[in-house]
Structures are given as C-alpha cells and as structure tokens.
C-alpha cells in the first residue's frame, strides 16, 4: 500500500511550514526529506507520525485515512532527534514499552515480549546492555535503543527525525551504513529527515528536497545530484559554480564560452548557468577553448584537490575539482594560467523581471544535448 500525501498545508503564526505538499511513498522505500531548517521537513514527518496535523490536505495509507487515525493506532515506529528514551526505564523496559502498553487482548505473553526484546537487542548489537539505564549509554548506543524500541511494535512505517544529528562524525558514518543494511534486511518503509545532503544521498532510495514548505524535487540521489530541477536544488546539493549567460545572436554566451543550441527558441534573453566543480575541464595547453583563468590557490582535500580560479572574462571566481594525482601530472601550481571549460551545465532562463523559471530547465552537455 503506498502512502499518499496530497495537498498538505500547514501554517504557523509566522510562516507556512507546508505549502501544498504532495508526495507518494512506495512500500519498502527508503525516503529522505532533505532541506535547510525551517523548510517544513520535520513538520511533514510529524504529520506522518500523528504528532501534528495539517490545516488542509489528506494523508492516506492505502485505503486508511491517516489523519483520522490517532498516532498510537498508526502502527508507526518513530525515532526522535534526541531519542526521547524513558530515562526511568532500563534498555529492556524501554524496548518492551510499546508491547506492554497494549490492551491485554493484543498484548504478547511475557515470554514472547522477552524473546522479542532479546532478538532486538541482538539486532542492534546491545545484548549486554539490557539492564542499563539510558544515562549509562553513549550517544550511538542510545540511538540504537531508540531504533529497537521503535521496531519492537513491528511498525508498517519507520520515521526518523534527524537520526544522526546528535552524534559524532565517526559514529554517524558507522550508524549510517548499519541503518542501510538494516533496511535492506527488513524492507520496512522508512522516512527520515535530515539537513545533511551527504547523509540523504548516501542512504536513501529517493530524496525529497524541501525549501520554504515546498517540495522542490523528488528523485533518486543521482538524479537529484546530476539533474537538479530548480536553482535551489542546484545550490543546496553539493558545490556549484553559478554565472549568467546572455543571448548572443542565435545562441547564448558567457565570457567567450558558448553552449551550443537554444531549446527556448529565442524566447529568453538571459539564463542562469550552474556547473559543478568536477564538471569544469581544466587544461594547461592554450589550444583548449573557453576561458582563460588564473589559478589562485590549491586546496588539497585528500583524493580531491579544489582549484580556486579567477576568470577575468566572467569577472568572477570559479572552483574546479581535479583528482589529486592530476596536480603533478598537469604540473599545477598557484599563480599559473589555465584554460577551463564546462563539460556540462544546468541552465534556467530568466524572465523579464529577472526571476528564474524552473520549468524551462536546460540540461546541457558538451558532447551532445539533452533537453529535459
């Protein structure tokens, strides 16, 4: 049964947290809600959990009207940002909580509960910690207890609010992989909220990028990264170079670089172009086309090197990424002159008022053209 969210609106006194949001979540899917703070992603998650309600719109889980179902009957597992463990209960008691509060008719026997808790403790690798209190655990351990507690009720839907937000960078990466494996194993529909794009792109089957209460784009991580639907997605996901191209007779140009073709057939006079640093081709030989650039600084970051370039023709700085071993192969050093040209770019036309039009996106590639 797919989870169907339609035309959700939610206003708080000062801003619209959700603005006509519609989304379908497939069974077994691992979906990330990604966005900056205040984008409405947490509100959306809380509506799914039954902890908040929209002003208008519907949420259907198959045939079931979720908004008419109280939180405790939705069969969801929720992992809170700060875990929300019951600090007066041991790890075992925390995990068993959701089973023990059931009415006697649907409550498993004591032995069943014990068995299930033990299996969960094993699954989250905390077999020896059942008797401890949350205050005696590390952040990563608490996180796993919270997850075990959510899984204990055998939910149809797992919701995670910034699941790794409060953890150290190292624990975060380990837990991320572990959660992905767990999902592969359980095939449980999972929605998680994050502001960390790396987390979203690495973990999720699909990512919904949110901004100002709207969903900007939903899609697989590589689609989000390579074919961003809006300027916001371009700028929010990954690093990106931005510059303006203007109409030049039949085509467009920016400081001597001309993307071939015009999908808009002469309708717009100006467009905004986005180029990812790794999509900037760097060459030493002056025979290469496009811009002349001055290499101002090299930032070495392990396997990648970030080149800080200044392009006089655009009168702006660009960043290009090259593999570290290319530094010596090309003989790059600060202060030298280079030539750079985009391999691919995403372009959005501007209307007369200067606003970009996402619907008219142009995905440009050096070798061949793609018109979305």
């Amino acid at each position: 049964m797919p989870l169907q969210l339609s035309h959700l609106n939610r206003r708080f006194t000062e801003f619209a947290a959700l603005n006509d949001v519609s989304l379908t979540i497939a069974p077994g899917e691992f979906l990330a809600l990604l966005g900056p703070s205040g984008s409405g992603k947490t509100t959306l998650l809380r509506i799914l959990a039954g902890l908040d309600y929209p002003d208008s719109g519907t949420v259907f889980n198959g045939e079931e009207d979720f908004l008419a179902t109280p939180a405790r009957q939705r069969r969801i597992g929720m992992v809170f940002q700060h875990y929300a463990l019951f600090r007066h209960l041991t790890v075992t008691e925390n995990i068993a909580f959701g089973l023990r509060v059931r009415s006697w008719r649907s409550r498993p026997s004591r032995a069943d509960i014990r068995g299930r808790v033990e299996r969960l403790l094993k699954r989250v690798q905390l077999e020896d910690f059942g008797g401890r209190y949350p205050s005696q655990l590390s952040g990563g351990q608490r996180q796993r207890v919270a997850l075990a507690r959510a899984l204990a009720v055998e939910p149809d839907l797992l919701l995670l609010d910034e699941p790794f937000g409060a953890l150290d960078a190292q624990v975060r990466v380990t837990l991320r992989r572990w959660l992905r494996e767990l999902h592969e194993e359980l095939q449980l529909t999972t929605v998680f909220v994050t502001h960390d794009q790396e987390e979203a792109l690495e973990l999720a089957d699909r990512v919904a990028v949110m901004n100002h209460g709207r969903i900007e784009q939903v899609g697989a991580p590589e689609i989000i990264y390579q074919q961003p639907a809006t300027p916001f997605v371009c700028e929010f996901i990954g690093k990106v170079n931005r510059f303006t191209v203007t109409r030049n007779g039949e085509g467009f140009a920016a400081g001597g670089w001309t993307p071939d073709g015009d999908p808009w057939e002469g309708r717009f006079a100006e467009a905004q172009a986005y180029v990812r640093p790794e999509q900037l081709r760097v060459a030493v030989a002056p025979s290469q086309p496009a811009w002349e650039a001055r290499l101002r600084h090299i930032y070495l970051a392990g396997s990648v090197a970030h080149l800080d370039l200044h392009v006089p023709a655009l009168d702006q700085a660009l960043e290009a990424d090259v593999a570290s071993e290319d530094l010596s192969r090309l003989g790059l050093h600060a202060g030298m002159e280079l030539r750079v040209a985009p391999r691919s770019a995403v372009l959005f036309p501007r209307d007369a008022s200067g606003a970009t039009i996402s619907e008219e996106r142009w995905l440009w590639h050096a070798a061949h053209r793609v018109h979305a």
Partner: protein
Amino acid sequence: MRHRVLPGFGISLGYALAYLGLIVLLPLAALGWKASGIGIAGLTHLLGAPRTLAALRLSIGGALLAALFNVVIGLLVGWVLVRYRFPGRRLFDALVDLPFALPTAVAGIALSTLYAPNGWLGQWLEPLGIKVAYTPLGVFVAMVFVGFPFVVRTLQPVLASLERDVEEAAESLGAQRWQTFFRVILPMLAPTLLTGFALALARAMGEYGSVIFIAGNLPMHSEIAPLLIVQKLEQFDYAGAAALGAVMLLLSFALLVMVSLLQRWSGRWAERTR
C-alpha cells in the same frame, strides 16, 4: 595557605560561622543539654504518657495525610498551571504562594472562622455531619494549607522542563493518554514529588500558628505536639518541653535524611540523558 585571588575569605567565613554558632548551634546545644537532663526513665515516662502519644500521633499522622493529599492536589494544580492556558492563570499562580506569605496566626483565625459551624464553609458542611473546626479534621485542613505551596513550587520547574518528545514517543508506541501519564510522566516526576512530600510533611509536623486556632486543642483529641511543648513550658516543665522538642527535632532530621537517601536511590537514572 594558597594565595587567594578574591578577598574576604577569612572575614566572610568567620562572620558566617560565628553568627551561625551564636544563633543556631548554641541554642540547639542548650536544647540537647536540657533534654538529656530528663534521663532515660524520664523520657520513657514522657513518651509513654497517653497525652504525649496522642499529640505525636496527631502531629505525625495528620502531617502524613496532609502531605499525601498535597502531593495529589499539588500535582494537579502544578500540571494545570504549567500545561494549560486560561484567563487568570498568572493570578492563580501567584496565589499559590499565599500560605508562604500569610502569617500563620492570620491563616489560623481565618481558617477557624471559615470552618466554624456558622462560617462560610462550616455552615454547608455542618448539615452533612462534617465537623471541621475543633476536630482533627481541622488540624488536617490547616496542615494542607501550610504545606500546599511546597509541592507545587517544587514541581513546577520540573514539569516545565519535562521533554515533550518523551510523551510523543510513548504515544507513537501505542500508549493511551493515561498509560503515558502513569508509566512515563509520573515515574519521571517521582523524585520531585518525594521532595515536595517531605517538605510539606516537615512543615506540617512542626506547624503551630495556623493549627492551634482551628484545632480546639482538646487533649487526647485535637492537641498537636508543638502545643504540648508550649503547655509544658507554661507549667515550667522545661526538661519535659526540651525532651519533647528534641524528639520532634530528631524526627524531622530523620525524615530529611531518609528522603535524601530515597532520592539518591530513585535518582539513579535521574541524570539527564541528553
């Protein structure tokens, strides 16, 4: 001695100690000295006297019941004041401190008048066969009055800082509202409620001014222990008064120690988990 950056250690500590010694320790030593003068035989005689026993029972039993009642009503009032918004909330919140601020003698005569058979409340209770003034029930009412703010004021900051997500977690795990209350909220509040209970109990046990007017002070019936001390003093039985005073003092110390032990035990998880 290590050199200190800030001045005034000697003078401030010296002054504080001298002051405490003169005002608190010396007089308490006098109490201990006078009380010990009564001897074991005297103490058994004193504590074995039916009138003493009745007074102690009323003071301790009444205070226990009043503190228990205050825990329940204090939890309710604290909850309402912290969780709900309604007109006049701040006014009612300020009103909670009234028993702290109102002199006990004033509270005593007001309660006594209120619950007298012709008083505002007494006239309605009398036909129902409920006698409050000049009975142990009156003692209870006065003890509730003086102990009430302790529970509410201890509870309020803790209630306000209670994490909402814990309640939401319980709800999403399928708990009914009452299950959330009894299984999650109440256990988390338990140490605080215990503190409030102990403070209200200690206060009610030693209370004098607000009780004696409404109590009627019938020996063996509605006479509280502090009043018995005063009576002994008026009969120039200094040793008896001192002994009874020492017994009550030890009782309230024992209570405080017990509570702090209980708290340490129940607070083994009280460390913040964030």
